């Protein structure tokens, strides 16, 4: 019954979140259009660009990333490396999301974690931030479905609350795939740190450990960012492909810039621009915005009209506010024995002793991760800059590669209304649309986390018999964009309700991490995916 609409559902954004909603709704036989701002890319093309690029992108080498991304930079969908994001706050929020069919997970690390029950009750238990409108039990079945949709490998027996106890959090089904094997470095480091009561935990992640829906087994290529050469790692292209196979129509190079409501508040259409600047309009019964946590609020703020001068769904003035990240720090240390980090995937071993406890009243939840990217080029550049040549150069490359450990900590941050995405008043992109302007800051809560982790790092260095060689507490961005479209029961201080439906417009929903009322210290994609699957279930009852 689709005579007066272009589609039953229009999804904006073809990343993992948009893909999950589109594929579920298309599989139920409904007509779905997905608008995607960026172009299509192929794994081969990105891999070749990476290999032939003089500056290789690495998470440990953020400064150089501007020159190093193998993903397209187009006037209508500019790269977020460089100066696309306008920064106005005391802390830079330099995140690097992608605009291509499949979205940002093309280059994500693929850590896929659940939050734990206490994370949903931050206000009640610890007097901080906000509670979710529902608890872990409600999301659990969707976490399980998300793990099977994305193909997650993990260790069922582990206590992911970090206390070294019984398996936690409770799960209704085992991980779809067993965990990845540990490298020597992980085993040896874990052995030494366990003497200090630090409980090693294996990161659950999107790398296949058995053939999984066309994905081969992870082969330790160590380039999860920027691209897995063999497609062992989950990325959003898998899900959007599924949606297309189920009949969804994916329109690439289509930049949504306005959501249109009628006088009753019903959303009737979305307007988009093509790279040539031409304007187009499509209608549908339902709309889901899945453009990640910066472009989503941007689109809502752009959608002004006489009736909605502050943008669509913004009667609370909360659109764009409560932007969060897992703003972090890192510490480098030099061991006195050969450990060889860098073997296998780019990350796997984490410590979660600081994940949960009454201390969260004063100190944020934290996750410590051993970075495991191949360090050769950073180490060699540094040695050459120091004038180390001859056989000493080879020796030092080997010694430092074998012994240098880099620990990256992620902290929970709180929803603060002043941390926000707004529209730049001075800068536009190639289509003339204002770029996002970001104000971001941290509070003493973050500083307390930093001080507490510095104590842990000192203890790590003693247990490992290593010397601390560098401390970076300069608010490292962790690439986990959350908030901006916050969820809550009260329409006066939140944008969407517990079903991810905007309070102001019954047929408009937001998918993914922008709705999270609290964010824990864990990578957010699995939580966003669980919310998106739950959203699709709700939609299917109505469409």
């Amino acid at each position, binding site marked *: 019954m689709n005579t007066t609409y272009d589609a039953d559902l229009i999804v904006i954004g073809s990343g993992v979140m948009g893909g999950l909603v589109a594929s579920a709704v298309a599989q139920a036989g409904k007509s779905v259009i997905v608008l995607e701002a960026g172009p299509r890319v192929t794994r081969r093309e990105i*891999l070749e660009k*990476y*290999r*032939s*690029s*003089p*500056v*290789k992108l690495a998470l440990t080498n953020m400064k150089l990333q501007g*020159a190093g991304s193998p993903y397209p930079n187009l006037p209508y969908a500019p790269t977020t490396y460089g100066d696309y994001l306008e920064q106005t706050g005391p802390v830079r929020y330099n995140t690097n999301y992608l605009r291509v069919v499949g979205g940002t997970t093309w280059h994500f690390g693929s850590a896929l974690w659940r939050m734990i029950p206490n994370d949903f009750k931050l206000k009640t238990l610890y007097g901080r931030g906000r509670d979710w409108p529902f608890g872990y039990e409600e999301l659990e079945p969707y976490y399980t479905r998300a793990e099977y949709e994305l193909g997650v490998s993990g260790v069922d027996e582990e206590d992911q609350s970090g206390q070294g106890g019984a398996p936690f959090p409770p799960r209704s089904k085992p991980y779809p795939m067993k965990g990845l*094997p*540990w*490298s*020597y470095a992980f*085993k*040896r480091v874990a052995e030494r740190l366990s003497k200090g009561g630090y409980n090693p935990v294996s990161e659950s992640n999107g790398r296949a450990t058995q053939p999984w829906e066309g994905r081969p*087994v*992870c*082969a*330790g*290529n*160590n*380039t999860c960012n920027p691209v897995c*050469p*063999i497609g062992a790692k989950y990325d959003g292209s898998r899900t959007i492909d599924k949606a297309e196979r189920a009949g969804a129509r994916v329109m690439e190079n289509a930049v949504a810039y306005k959501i249109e409501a009628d006088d009753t508040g019903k959303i009737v259409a979305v307007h988009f621009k093509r790279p040539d600047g031409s304007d187009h309009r499509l209608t549908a019964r339902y709309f889901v915005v899945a453009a990640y946590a910066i472009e989503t609020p941007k689109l809502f703020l752009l959608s002004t009209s006489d009736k909605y001068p502050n943008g669509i769904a913004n009667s609370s003035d909360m659109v764009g506010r409560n932007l969060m990240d897992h703003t972090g720090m890192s510490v480098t240390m030099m061991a006195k024995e*050969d450990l*060889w980090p*860098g*073997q*296998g995937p780019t990350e796997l071993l984490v410590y979660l002793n600081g994940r949960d406890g009454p201390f969260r009243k004063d100190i944020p939840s934290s996750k410590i991760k051993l970075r495991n*990217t*191949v*360090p*050769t*080029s950073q180490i*060699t*550049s540094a040695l*050459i800059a120091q*004038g180390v*040549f*001859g*056989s*000493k*150069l*080879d*020796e030092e*490359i*080997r010694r430092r*590669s*074998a012994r240098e450990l880099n620990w990256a900590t992620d902290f929970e941050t709180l929803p603060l209304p002043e941390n926000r995405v707004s529209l730049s008043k001075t800068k536009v992109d190639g289509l003339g649309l204002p770029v996002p302007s970001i104000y971001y800051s941290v509070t003493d809560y973050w500083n307390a986390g930093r001080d507490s982790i510095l104590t842990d790092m000192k203890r790590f260095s003693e247990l490992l018999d290593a010397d601390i060689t560098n401390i970076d507490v300069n608010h490292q961005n962790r690439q986990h964009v959350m908030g901006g479209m916050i969820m809550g029961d009260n329409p006066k201080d939140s944008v969407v309700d517990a079903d991810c439906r905007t309070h102001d417009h019954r047929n408009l929903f937001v998918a993914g991490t922008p709705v999270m009322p609290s964010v824990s210290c864990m990578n957010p994609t699995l939580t966003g995916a669980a919310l998106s699957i739950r959203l699709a279930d709700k939609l299917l009852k109505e469409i």
Partner: protein
Amino acid sequence: MYRPENRPRSINQPQFSRRALVKGAATAVAVAGFAGSLPALAADDAAGPFTRASEFLTSRKLNPVLAGRYYVALKKRDPQFDAEVSRLLGIIAQAKASDVDAFLASTQLDQQSSSTVTKIISSWYLGTVGEGADAELVGYAEALMYEPTRGILVVPSYGGGPNSWGEKPV
């Protein structure tokens, strides 16, 4: 002490060298194509002194095709490069050192020759010539920096295969 001659051979990637060579040839064509610089191949003779300096400074027999391409890339950015190389070769000859370590220990390099040494070593080790936005890639998997840890750490994107890690590296 670690020496390039007895560098450990790959255990996890027995086919690494063959693959790297094939790959290297493919990249050579690709890169020459992009820079539009066919003279790379014709430059073998002109690159002779550069190759000699490079082999002395890195203590290795080096791939002549790559040498030609590093030479072209370096010369493009520095018109005085030939003169600098011949001056450096003069200093090396004068030092009468048995190898690069003895040379570096016995010779106080002036600013210019030290910069020439850095340029040459940096190119071969990192596989790139030039800085920042001007940087150009000449070799990837062939960059010398990967040699000291070969067999233990991979060249990123050329993995060792499923479960190729876990044992204590030797």
